[in-house]
């Protein structure tokens, strides 16, 4: 019985981690900054490829993953400075620009690195409960997802940068008038978002097939989680992931992956219909 209970928790944790890690970067870039970043998947792919490359050079996995997230973050800062910065007031153009970027990046990777590279293998470690065996690494992913949530909360709610960032997102002109360096804040925020996307790719790299379009497998889940979370991403993303993970896990377990995916997307449609502002609108109202 306890094996069944644990397995339910494990499966929930697995889907939850996938949703949080794929959505965290987008929550900042799309949720807070309002940039519909179609290249989100390519930042994820970047994290994965850098991780695998560094591990093949002999670095330990954890360090490679940290460096990969950092690389994606720095590329994010550059992308913000070169492309996104000019398009804050033109959201549809930024959508097109980032989509174009995504196409260019996937095709360039295909041409330069090739259609597929060899994986590095999931770190050893598994444990058995009842008749089931589980991979320890999946729990590491869950721990990372929780850590990312806590980290985001601390950065944006407890630090001076966070206060200024939130002020800039709410009213850039006023924040600027009060002395916030909004240009730099935008760049750093975008960089954090890209870095978190890179972290997602870095963490999932050992468990997946590595191809240039691998980011696409995360993109639907990430947008869905952020949209269901709603306007206040710091409050909304976690409950959105909990809610969607529970639905998907229950349906996956009983009816298989097809129904799991259909059911989750159906729930998303219902939520957007009933709560156009997302889950966080309810939470914020309650809070006041």
């Amino acid at each position, binding site marked *: 019985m306890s094996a069944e209970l644990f397995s339910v928790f494990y499966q929930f944790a697995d889907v939850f981690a996938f949703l949080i890690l794929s959505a965290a970067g987008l929550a900042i870039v799309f949720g807070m900054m309002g940039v519909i970043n179609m290249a989100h998947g390519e930042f994820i792919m970047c994290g994965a490829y850098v991780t695998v490359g560094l591990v093949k050079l002999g670095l330990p996995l954890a360090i490679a993953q940290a460096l990969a997230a950092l690389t994606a973050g720095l590329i994010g800062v550059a992308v913000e400075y070169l492309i996104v910065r000019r398009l804050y007031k033109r959201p549809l153009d930024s959508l097109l620009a980032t989509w174009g970027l995504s196409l260019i990046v996937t095709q360039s990777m295909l041409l330069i690195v090739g259609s*597929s590279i060899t994986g590095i*293998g999931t770190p050893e470690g598994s444990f*058995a409960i009842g008749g089931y065996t589980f*991979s320890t690494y999946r729990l590491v992913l869950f721990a990372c997802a929780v850590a990312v949530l806590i980290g985001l909360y601390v950065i944006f709610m407890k630090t001076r940068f966070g206060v200024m960032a939130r002020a800039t997102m709410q009213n850039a002109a006023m924040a600027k008038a009060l002395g916030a360096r909004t240009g730099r804040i935008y760049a750093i925020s975008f960089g954090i978002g890209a870095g978190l996307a890179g972290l997602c790719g870095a963490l999932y790299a050992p468990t*997946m097939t590595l191809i240039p379009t691998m980011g696409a497998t995360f993109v639907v889940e990430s947008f869905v989680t952020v949209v269901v979370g709603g306007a206040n991403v710091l409050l909304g993303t976690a409950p959105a992931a909990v809610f969607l993970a529970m639905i998907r896990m229950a349906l996956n377990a009983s009816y298989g992956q097809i129904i799991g995916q259909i059911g989750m997307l159906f729930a998303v449609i219902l939520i957007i219909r009933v709560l156009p502002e997302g889950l966080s609108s309810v939470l914020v109202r309650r809070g006041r």
Partner: protein
Amino acid sequence: MKSGHLLKVAVLGVVLGTAAFGVAQAAEPPLKVGLLEDVSGDLAFMGMPKLHGSQLAVEEINKSGGILGRQIELIHLDPQGDNARYQEFARRLLSRDKVDVLIGGITSASREAVRPIIDRTTTPYFYTNQYEGGVCDASMISMGAVPEQQFSTLIPWMVEKFGKKVYVIAADYNFGQISAEWNRKIMKDLGGEVVGEEFIPLGVSQFAQTIQNIQKAKPDWLLTINVGAAQDSFFEQAAAAKLNLPMGSSIKIMLGFEHKRFKPPALNNMHATANWFEEIDTPEAKDFKKRWRAKFPDELYINDMGYNAYNALYMYKTLVEKAKSTKLEDLRKVIAAGDACIDAPEGKVCIDPKSQHTSHRMRLISVGPQHEVTVEKDYGTIKPYWLGDIGCDLTKKNDKDQYTPSHLPNKS
């Protein structure tokens, strides 16, 4: 000024050269071969060897004088794994470029997308993949292996070796669904039991729940007919969770070269039946691999699709030369006479007159813990007999249909 002058001379040279070339070639316009293969998108890693195999065959045939003295012009378009683009490009190749033959398509969905378009023309079409079988269509010539060559060999072997309980994970589209149906039929005939079947939407990459469902069902072995890079993540995740079950498949190793793309031992204990895999070491195969590697030194793996794509051009050459014509009806007369055979790197292969599918030398291969491939069993040449047995006879009637164990021709 000087460079401008040079340019003029160069242009003149090119024009004259082209004109001279044009005169020499005017009597024999090239044969146009239309090729639809994905070299970008999710299936690029499989499509690339298909393009390479076609290019290698075209180069070799052109060097040795072409087909009936005519050079081959290969027109490749990349549908990027998008079935709508497959249809658009097929129309373009057929009606604008007026190709003499159309080759290609990776997924069965893409094949079924272009087949009705080809059926409205008189252009022959070669499908070069192994697939779920059953297409009885006079316009189509199938070069890959089919279930009676792959499943009727593999599944009895797996049952005998590992046990009667199987769990199936399959991609959720026509290939996966029909292959699963084949498995059900063969398992029933063997007195085995399908303890679970899970169909996975394309693009899904997370399998923790599936792995647990498998452990709950306690099968003796797995049939893995999952498709695409995302779904292949199953192997890494199953290995990390220590699932440790024997696996069988009709598309792994020789087609998707998962043993080259994943770190050992993720593909340990995988078994497949194949007409080609790069590890074949007969003299003919070695010679073929040497020529391939000379042209494409960076190829990660020469897969069976690429190999079949290479054979398709030689088969086309044989058909055209025997028929002394490029017309579909004339090519089909050669097939109907049972004369459509080539000496392929795997050995002699022939097109079956009734179904227009290809006979193959089938071998059962196993993957070891270091991802080494060993041949377990050699079945010799197996003919594609199933369609003929159920009543498809293209020499008499063009059904233009795809049959499955549960969708058989009407007995009239």
